[in-house]
Every structure is written in C-alpha cells, then in structure tokens.
C-alpha cells in the first residue's frame, strides 16, 4: 500500500478542516436560530404566564376601580374595538381603490413610479409622525379635539399606504390571463376587473386590510396625541356623541400608566399587556387563517 503523498495528506486534512468548519457553521446557525426562537417564545410565554393570572371574566368586563388598582379593563378593550372598527370603515375606501389604481391603471411610467415610492415611504413612516399630523390637522386645525373621530382618521391615514401596497400585491398575484380573457369577451376593463380579478384577490385584500388596521390599533403614539382617555365614570353607550369624545383604549392605558409611574399595579399591567397582545395576535391569526383557507381554494 503506497503511503499517501504529502499533497494528498494535506488535501485530506484540508477537507477534514472544511468539513469541520462546515459543521461548526451549522452549529452556529442552529444557535442563532435557537436564540431567536427562544426570544420569541420567552417574550410571548412570559407575557402569557404573567398575564393569565390577572385575566378572568371580571377583568375583561368591568371598568377599573379603586384608583386604577383594581377592577377590569373593559372600557379599554371596547375603545380599541371601536378604533379598529372605524379604521376598517374608513381605510378601504381609499386604500383598496388606490391599490387597484396602482395595480391596473398606474402602469410603469415615471409618475406612477414616484407615487409608488411615496406610498412605500408612507408605509414605513413612524407612527409618531402620523400622531403629529393628526394632532395638527384633525385635532387642532379641524377642531375635532381629542376624539374618537380624530383617532379614526389618524389610524386610517396610517393604514392606507399599507393597504394600498397589499391590495396591489393581491391583485398582481392573480394571473393576468384572467383579465385578458374577460376583456376579450367584450367586457370593459373595469367590468373585467370587478368580475374576473377582484373576486380572486379579495382574500388577500381583506387580509392586508385587517393586518394593517390591527397593527395601527396596537400602536400607542398616534392615539396618545389624538384620541386617548384615561378614565371615565360615564355609562358606556354607543351613539352619535361617542364620536366626539375621546376613548379609553389598551395602548393608551399602558402608555399613560407608565407615565404615571406605579399607579397601576403590576398584575393589572401584565393582564393589560396580555390582552393587548392577544387582541392584535388574534386579529392577525384570523387574517392568516382566512388567507390560507382561500389559498387552498384557489383554482390556479
């Protein structure tokens, strides 16, 4: 048996080294992944563990009591639902139509490109900027005051660019043959869009809408400057007047609770954190399920 040549030995050693470094590399990747997943589970898990003991039916259905140190957070949950509902009401009118324009009418000219760039900038604009804008325009200039309406408008403004982009994506993901086929059957472009393209794109559009609104409602800064209410002994009714009044809501409750430093006991804070997190997570989960259901039904 011939001895291995020096070169061969070197090669083998290098190979071994490469293999070993490859293994090391995989291990490192695994560690990264484990840390990331650990962080996610750690945070969500901790909030669950700390928050669950605070949660019971009374907590979810009663108003705060004894100087915010007892009772529940129902007014805040109600406020967040109201804000969400209004945002879902206002956003689609502009967001979805704008998305359709982007996808089907804008084309790829220079101007639409600029508009698109602007919209993606708006989608990435910090929420505090929308808060500032809402304060300057809705609260001060239009004299809406800090009110539910001002909150709706601010949150809608914040969601519209995101909804436009997701709508555009949803429409673009429908194969172009759908539109072409319909047009060739003699339908006008708008009819073709409505009959052939939009029905397939609807799940994607709605998912985007709900995700955007859910995210907006979880943000504290815009609400802080436009719609927050700390506490009220008023009977919670829903009428025209509600629009002009500020509403208590979950993120504002947490933000103001922090500012007041230690007034709200820890247990209630964790409970509120959990409720807010679940509020947003459930909305997301719902949207994701709807989307995957629809995907399963897709015919292409």
């Amino acid at each position, binding site marked *: 048996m011939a001895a291995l040549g020096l070169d061969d030995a070197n090669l083998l050693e290098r190979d071994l080294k490469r293999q070993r470094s490859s293994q090391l590399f995989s291990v490192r990747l695994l560690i990264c992944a484990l840390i990331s997943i650990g962080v996610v589970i750690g945070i969500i898990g901790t909030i669950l563990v700390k928050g669950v003991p605070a949660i019971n039916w009374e907590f979810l259905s009663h108003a705060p*009591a*004894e*100087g*915010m140190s007892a009772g529940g957070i129902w007014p805040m949950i109600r406020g967040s639902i109201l804000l969400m509902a209004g945002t879902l009401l206002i956003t689609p009118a502009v967001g979805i139509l704008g998305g359709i324009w982007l996808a089907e009418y804008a084309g790829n000219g220079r101007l639409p490109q600029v508009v698109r760039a602007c919209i993606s900038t708006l989608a990435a604009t910090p929420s505090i900027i929308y808060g500032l804008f809402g304060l300057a325009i809705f609260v*001060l200039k*239009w*004299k*809406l*005051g*800090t*009110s539910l*309406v*001002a909150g709706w*408008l601010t949150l809608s403004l914040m969601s519209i660019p995101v909804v436009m982009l997701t709508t555009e994506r949803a429409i673009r993901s429908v194969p172009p043959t759908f539109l072409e086929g319909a047009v060739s059957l003699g339908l006008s472009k708008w009819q073709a869009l409505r009959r052939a393209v939009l029905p397939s794109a609807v799940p994607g559009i709605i998912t985007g809408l709900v995700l955007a609104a859910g995210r907006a409602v979880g943000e504290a800064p815009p609400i*802080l*400057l436009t719609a*927050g*209410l*700390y*506490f*009220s*002994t*008023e*009977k919670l009714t829903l009428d*025209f*007047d509600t*629009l*002009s*009044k*500020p509403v208590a809501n979950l993120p504002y409750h947490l933000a*103001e609770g922090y*500012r*007041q*430093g*230690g*007034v709200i006991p820890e247990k209630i804070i964790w409970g509120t954190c959990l409720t807010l997190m679940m509020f947003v997570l459930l909305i997301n989960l719902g949207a994701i399920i709807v989307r995957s259901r629809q995907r399963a039904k897709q015919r292409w």
Partner: protein
Amino acid sequence: MILEAVAALAIGKSLGTVSVKGSDTLLVVNQRWAEAYGKTTGGSVAVTGGGSSIGIRAFINGVADICASSRPMRESEIRSARSRGSIANEIPVCLDGLAIAVNQSNKIESLSMDDLRRIYVGQITNWKQLGGPDEAIVVFSRDSNSGTYGFFQLNVLKNQNWGPQVRFMPSTSEEAREVARTDGGIAYGGVAYFQGKKNIRLVPISAKKGGEAFAPSEQNVRSKKYPIWRYLYYYTNGKPSGDTKKFIDFVLSPAGQRIAEEVGYYSLK
C-alpha cells in the same frame, strides 16, 4: 365636506358628562376624584391626560368642561380663550409640596432654599460645605418626564441649569430607594413617597439663609411657611354651574380633599 360635517358634529359637547382634561401631574388625583364622585353621586366624569397644554388648548377651544393644570394659565392663553368666548376661572384644587429627603445617617439640621439651589446646580458638592461631615453629596432628581422636574427647576433652581452630577431617576420611588442606600444622597419629591420609609429623613427647609426652617408638615405647607409648594388648578369657563359645579364642589369638599391627601398632595384649607 363630509369631514367638515363630522367636525361640526364633534364640537358639540355631550350632556351630563363632565370632561376634565390636562395635566399629567393631576391625572392620578383626577381619576380618584372622578371615581369617588361617580360612586357617591352617580354623576359621570371623563378624565383625560396629555399635559397641561393639551388641557388648556381644549379649554380655549371650548371642548372640555374643566382644564386641569399644574401651572397657572399664561396671559397669552387667557387672552386667546377670551377671544373665543371663554373666561378663564381659576380654582386651586390642592396643594403640592415637595419634600427634601436625605439619608438617615445625615445629621444636617436644615437647608435654606439657596443651599438647595447650590447643591442642585453643582456649586456645593460636599456636605462639609454645609457644616456636615466630609461626604460627597449624591444628588438625585426626577427626570424631565415629570411635572415636578419643571416645578423644582423653576422654584428651587431659579431656572438655572442642573449640575453635571445630578442623577435623574424615572420615578420618585426610585429616588427614595437610592437615597435610602446612599449615605450622601439627597432627593426631592411628593412627601408621601418618603414618609415612613426606612433610612430616610426629611430635612426642614428655610426660605432664607439663617431663617427659621420648617418641616414639610401639613400645617407648614398649608400656611406657606414651608417654602417649596405650588397650587394645582382647575380652570372653568366662567363660574362653574350644573354638573361641573357639583363635581368641583365634591373635589373641594372634605371627602375630595382627603382623596388628594391619600394621593400625596396637601388639602386646601
């Protein structure tokens, strides 16, 4: 056009609910008042924070019944309110006195307002300079998030800059904790946060060097002998009436004032 219609609608105030807007300093006590008022009379009160200026602005625009403020309204704001038909009516609702706390081991008998200023602007850095032991002064303050920060800077520092060694704490309870474990420490804050805490002593304060020093006791603050205090205010449009008056009457009643004391302020008398 639709928006304008909404705007017109939004200005209309709701009946029956008293809205209190403004100062974050007052937010906690406002909430307690509202809650107790609701419990005893069934009346409804809505409390919003956001800051004194938000409250004052709401008042100027006529969208809040009561504006809660930790500072007196400025002349320009009163004028601006008047030009829109709101006459600012100032009602002090409680007294806010800041206590000065040091570590229990510190034997200093009293401090003058000027000593305090010099400590906080960094001109006095050792207790020795005030006749105490040779011990560096560790200065604690609230951070600029809080209303007391501005109050202290205006009234004690006479608007001078904070010294370089001042340590800013996010809450008064953290200040108290630090002073309790730091021999040379000094801090300020609402008296309720320091009273009865282990290892903390409240220092009597004199208005002038060599003048008589007073502890931040209830009588001393109320009689203005203790020098670090301020009023906290409600503003209403003209003399309050109806539900607004009922609520303010409750606030000024012994029951209402007792709540203010529980929160750490001093009652008016």
